């Protein structure tokens, strides 16, 4: 890895100060755990004139229940999230997704906000300078062609955060703070299907917190496919939220990661609500998952395999949650 370029380092004590600094230094970046940003910067995948460390912003580390919603500060670490009793009992998909990120040492530094804003990944981007130069670079940085889809006018780097699909399926909202003040939006609206501009964040905006509804009777789970079991980004990740009412589905929400440039909430599942979960319903679900994802050659694992494996992963989770819900 290369050395870090020169930058100023700031450690504000409030989110408002962090946003103000971001405005003062246009080429600055926020840093939280740094587990993804620092290796990327050392590989020359983006620099900064200043880094604004969010580690001292206490308000962003709050994790509290507000009635029937859980408020999670963006600075809460993934290790804290995975071990929190309310998250484990009421939002298991979120706990499982947090636990599926990298290794234990990463998770004790890495934060919820960092994972939600994770830089998109591609086998043509996450490489050394030499490797990328030998390949005439790529559209995402320093080049003009997407190596994954050379005729495309956009970049297809894959969003690879594990936590986003769980929160999408759970119907989370995000709180953003900018120079004009705070705003809230559904998590789904934070993302754009473009490997280069995958976040709909304004230039000076900071992701401050996430709120998740605690819906009674919901079962949920997250699972991912990866090459290395201990530490790895997802080849595909699937989160399922399901509510069963007797022999019918009362709710089914599925979101995927690693298979598009944004975490993808699968559309077209509403028609299954009110039905029983038989083979036909599962086939419909698999078809909708396959329709909603767009795996590209962003990893070494083959695209057809990922396209076929993702719906199978979803089916296994749905079936498991459905069977478990019968007992409860």
């Amino acid at each position, binding site marked *: *890895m290369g050395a*870090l*370029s*020169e*930058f*100023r*380092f700031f*450690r504000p004590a409030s989110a408002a100060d962090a946003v103000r600094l971001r405005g003062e230094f246009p080429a600055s970046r926020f*840093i939280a755990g*740094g*587990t993804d940003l*620092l*290796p990327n910067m*050392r*590989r020359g995948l983006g620099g900064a004139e200043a*880094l604004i*460390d969010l*580690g001292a912003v206490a308000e962003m580390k709050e994790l509290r229940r507000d009635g029937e919603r859980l408020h999670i500060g963006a600075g809460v670490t993934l290790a804290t999230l995975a071990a929190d009793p309310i998250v484990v009992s009421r939002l298991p998909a979120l706990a499982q997704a947090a636990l599926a990120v*990298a*290794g*234990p*040492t*990463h998770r*004790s*530094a890495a934060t919820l906000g960092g994972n939600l804003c994770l830089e998109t990944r591609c086998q043509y981007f996450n490489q050394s300078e030499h490797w990328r130069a030998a390949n005439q670079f790529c559209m995402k940085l320093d080049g003009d062609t997407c190596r994954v889809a050379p005729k495309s006018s956009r970049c297809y780097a894959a969003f690879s955060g594990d936590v986003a699909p769980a929160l999408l399926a759970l119907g989370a909202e995000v709180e953003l703070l900018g120079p004009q003040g705070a705003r809230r939006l559904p998590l789904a609206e934070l993302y754009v299907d473009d490997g280069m501009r995958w976040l709909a964040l304004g230039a000076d905006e900071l992701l401050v917190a996430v709120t998740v509804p605690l819906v009674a009777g919901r079962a949920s789970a997250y699972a991912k496919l990866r090459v290395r079991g*201990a*530490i790895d980004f997802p080849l595909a990740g699937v989160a399922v939220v399901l509510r069963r009412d007797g022999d019918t589905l009362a709710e089914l929400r599925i979101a995927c990661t690693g298979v598009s440039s944004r975490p993808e909430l699968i559309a077209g599942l509403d028609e299954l609500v009110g039905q029983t979960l038989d083979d036909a319903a599962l086939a419909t679900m698999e078809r909708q998952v396959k329709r909603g994802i767009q795996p590209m050659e962003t990893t070494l694992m083959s695209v057809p395999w990922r396209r076929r494996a993702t719906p199978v992963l979803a089916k296994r989770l749905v079936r498991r949650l459905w069977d478990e819900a019968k007992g409860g």
Partner: protein
Amino acid sequence: MKKLLTLTVNGRLREDAVAENALLIDYLRDTLGLTGTKQGCDGGECGACTVLVDGVPRLACSTLAHSVEGRSIETVEGLSTAGNLSRLQRAFHEHLGSQCGFCTPGMIMAAEALLRRNPQPSRDEIRAALAGNLCRCTGYVKIVDSVEAASKCGEVTA
């Protein structure tokens, strides 16, 4: 540009002028000469650079020195007391948990944090705690044996 950094390293309060873009691993190895912390993959994938920050394992290669201002850092050099190996160091020595030795400081620091919070871990718990640490000699069985042995020898350090 250098800025003053105040923190505790292996129990000793320090104040050093440190570049704003310095990584914790470079501060430990180059400024303090504590070369026990190893620079392995240098990209957050192997765990060789694991140190403890307020008792929690942290990758020194992916941590800015100034981001741990005021915190307590422990490296492998801080484990032995009066020339005596710690229980984990002794167990790694006696149970052949160390082969080429490059991953050992990171393994021991990650295991040290585990034993402090869970003095009697199961083998699965040991494996989970060391999941972020790679051994290219692939000596994992002996490493888990060593941690298990250390957990059984209680607090005896000499």
